[in-house]
């Protein structure tokens, strides 16, 4: 099955991004495809390569980048939400790209299920 994922909250503040990530990993382990993760609202902060969590904490941003690299998951950051919050191409972590809301609607149309994670 093909999944689309939407993440509405930033890393560390809310568990939403963590749960979404664990869901994606479990879906892939089950043989499903995660076509795209769309980051909206404060969720765009998941894409900042400037984040530096302490050594003993999980690295949320790197975790997403690795998922994109290893499993071809398309990580899309909403352009309007990103610009509002200072997320631009120059501080985008590997595997992420900035695009429009059409990418969310498109994955809603193309995927078998769209699952939303937020506050």
């Amino acid at each position, binding site marked *: 099955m093909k999944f689309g994922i939407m993440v509405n909250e930033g890393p560390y503040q809310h568990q939403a991004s963590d749960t979404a990530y664990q869901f994606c990993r479990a879906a892939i382990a089950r043989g499903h495809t995660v076509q795209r993760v769309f980051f909206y609202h404060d969720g765009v902060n998941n894409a900042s390569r400037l984040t530096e969590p302490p050594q003993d904490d999980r690295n949320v941003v790197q975790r997403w980048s690795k998922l994109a690299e290893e499993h071809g998951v398309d990580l899309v950051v909403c352009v309007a939400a990103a610009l509002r919050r200072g997320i631009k191409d120059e501080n985008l972590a590997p595997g992420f790209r900035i695009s429009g809301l059409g990418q969310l609607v*498109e994955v809603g149309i193309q995927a078998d299920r769209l699952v939303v994670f*937020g506050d």
Partner: protein
Amino acid sequence: MTTKKFMFVNRKAPYGTVYALESLEVVLITAAFDQDVSLVFMDDGVYQLKKGQQTKGIEHKNFSPTYRALEGYDIEKLYVDRESMTARSLTEDDLLVPVTVLSRDQLTSLFEEQDVVLSF
């Protein structure tokens, strides 16, 4: 292109958080993709449709006129949960746009027939 049934569930009040505004943005884009769009307003989400919003004092953009413009994008399925209105002492006269008021049972059926349910 495939047409799917997209439903937007609005359960949060405007201005206190950004969700109501950013939900509207997705609604408009979804309509541009020629999808079957429904909006549901329940819980504090019914306040999004309250007439008379004046945002000058908080320096936010007043996006409430957008609800009136939805019709121009062929978005005509606006549903409001009756119990949520009653709990907030609101009637249809308090709302910016004509809506269809639904009972909880009717909402249950509406939820079940959707392909994609988005909430923010």
